[in-house]
């Protein structure tokens, strides 16, 4: 379980987060939703322990997160960003096995894990010898997911993982992720600005706006019991897909 209490973060020119309080139970998918600049990525970094909050605390499984180098939660975290965050000078395989290699996990074990995971995320093993720039966006994200899952993390932090994909790839990847989440039973925090994606994944949704939590609850809570006019405004901001009949012959 992750508990965020009274977390605030200010930069000289603006407040990014003010007095955030959240409880995120384990083995569920939590979505941080909001438009860009609302503070959702900052909150994710504070939870991961790579950025210090000005005040407030984050507890992961009852242990307070402190910012340290190397990242103290690293052994329990899987992390993936928009475009995957693969290192361009390593092949896909070098990218996914990097941390395991650094930690001294023997190569036979690495190979076995690689086989499991490439089957799980649906990435052709032949593509692993390619460099990131030789892969498509979807393939890069699958490789990045393998890397995030490689050391069997308890927590998976995903920062707009599908932000840069075309609709078809995004749809495939969403379905794959959903399946992986339910199969692995790990705690997921997913940052997105896409309402459909939030609804599809989120056991809970936290709607952030200008550094404040407007509402935290299920999607249906947000739709039917909005706590703030902006919640409804945000949910309605996405243009609905017109019915085919409306477009005329």
């Amino acid at each position, binding site marked *: 379980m992750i508990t965020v209490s009274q977390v605030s973060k200010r930069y000289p020119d603006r407040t990014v987060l003010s007095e955030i309080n959240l409880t995120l139970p384990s083995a569920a998918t939590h979505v941080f939703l909001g438009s860009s600049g609302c503070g959702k990525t900052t909150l994710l970094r504070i939870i*991961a322990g*790579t950025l210090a909050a000005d005040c407030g605390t984050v507890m992961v499984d009852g242990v307070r997160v402190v910012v340290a180098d190397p990242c103290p939660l690293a052994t329990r975290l899987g992390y993936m960003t928009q475009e995957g965050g693969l290192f361009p*000078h*390593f092949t896909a395989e070098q990218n996914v096995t990097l*941390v395991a290699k*650094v930690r001294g996990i023997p190569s036979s074990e690495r190979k076995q894990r690689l086989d499991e995971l490439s089957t799980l995320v649906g990435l052709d093993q032949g593509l692993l010898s390619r460099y990131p*720039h030789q892969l498509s966006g979807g393939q890069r994200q699958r490789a990045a997911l393998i890397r995030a899952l490689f050391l069997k993390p308890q927590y998976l932090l995903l920062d707009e993982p599908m932000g840069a994909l075309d609709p078809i790839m995004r749809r495939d990847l969403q379905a794959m992720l959903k399946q992986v989440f339910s199969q692995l039973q790990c705690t997921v925090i997913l940052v997105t600005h896409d309402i459909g994606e939030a609804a599809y994944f989120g056991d809970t949704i936290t709607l952030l706006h200008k550094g404040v939590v407007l509402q935290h609850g299920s999607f249906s809570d947000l739709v039917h019991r909005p706590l703030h006019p902006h919640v409804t405004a945000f949910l309605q901001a996405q243009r609905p897909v017109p019915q085919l009949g409306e477009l005329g012959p």
Partner: protein
Amino acid sequence: MNSLRCLVSLLSVLALWIGTERSGVALTDPGEIRVASKPFTESYILSEMLAQIIDATGEAKAVRKFGLGGPTLVVDGIKSGELDIDVNYTGALAHLMLPTKQNPTSDELHSALRAHGLLLSQSLGFNNTYAIAVRSETARALTLHNISDLRNHPNLRGAFTPDFLNYDDGFYKLQQVYGVPLTQVKPMQHSLAYQALASQEIDLTDAYTTDGSLSQFDLTLLSDDRDFFPKYYGVILIRAAIAQRFPKTWTALRKLEGTLSDSQMTQINAKVDVHKQAITEVARQFLLEQKLITGSERGTTLPGSVLEDSLWTSTYEHLMLVLSSLFLSCLIGIPLGILAVQYRRTGQLLIALTSLLQTIPSLALLCFLIPLLGIGARPTIFALFLYGLLPVSQSTTSGLLSLDSRLIETARILGLTKWQRLRLIALPLASRNILAGIKTTAVINVATATIAALIGAGGYGRYITSGLAMNDASLILKGAIPTAAMAVLFHFLFECLARWVIPKGLQSERPTEP
């Protein structure tokens, strides 16, 4: 990363090799006498004579350290035991050893030198002092014979060497002593001043009394009727220890005393400056005429002088200077660049210091380094190393700062330590920038290393220095062309190296849609 490691080990091996090869400057082979010369014709010829006499006597072997620059370098080198012998001038020595004394006597000079373990021969005969030169036709037209005659012609245009303008006993003192009211005076290098005089751009300049190129330009030397200029008698300066160890050689060398009059010295200089005869030949011819050598040793004990040194030797020396200084620049510059990113303020301060170093003119820097490192390859390598610090550290810093911060953040969340992030992620990603900085340094070093000749480290600079000193364009080109070629070669070498060092994933970031 592996290739980076290979590169580092390759460079270390090179540095070690250079270390063992080149540090020999200060080590004395007991059977050798190191003969120095300054970079002008007369000094080359006289030192060549010394070297030939030493070799002919057979007690020791002469090692030629010719073309060393700067007024104090050779004397300092002999004092500190890095050089053994040279032909010097009484006026210059008095200026160096007894700077506060007006017109010291010969005895005073001898005892001042003895205090530093140095011995002086008697005068070789000629007095190569300053003189004022005018075109012969001007001298006739204005009936100029003595310097005093200039008093009536304040409109004559003068150009003098910077030395002459700045020395205490130079131009301004001359104006006072003679009351010469020249109004138009500017600084100009010797060889240029003669050309300017010939083409009537200027009317008078300072000259040396035994200058061989005087005859080429039809110049008249005005006589020093008030005995203003100090005497610059040519004398042999030797370390006392060497004179003791090789008494036969010292006796043989002293037979040069009184053999060269002003006009003889001028003629000998002209053979090289005007008639382009080889220095070794001119020196040998004189020694044979004077029966100071027998001539039977021809071809066996007559190694080529510095100017006839093979191009390969120079190439080797030049290359070693460039590579070893480059290695040091990388060794210190890259970590400095990394520090500048980690600790912004301290790092920026250090980098600012390296840019300050950049502003020191190379000759001045060498002068500062000589007391610490002596002469030869070491101070040159150190100077080049200092000059290389800025481009290497700056490119490392800018390479690291231009990285996508999200990648570094990802590496951190993945649990890589600071050192692992630097080694595995940041440095390989910045390698293109870093290598570009190293390439710039290498190319600049190839050019700057030409100054090495002035402090006895050889390289292509020896041709350029001698060529400039003797106004010989073909000799200058003999140094300049290989220097340019080496710079171009380094450029291409680094293009190839880039393919090897820069990780493959960064080399062609063209998306290939499968």
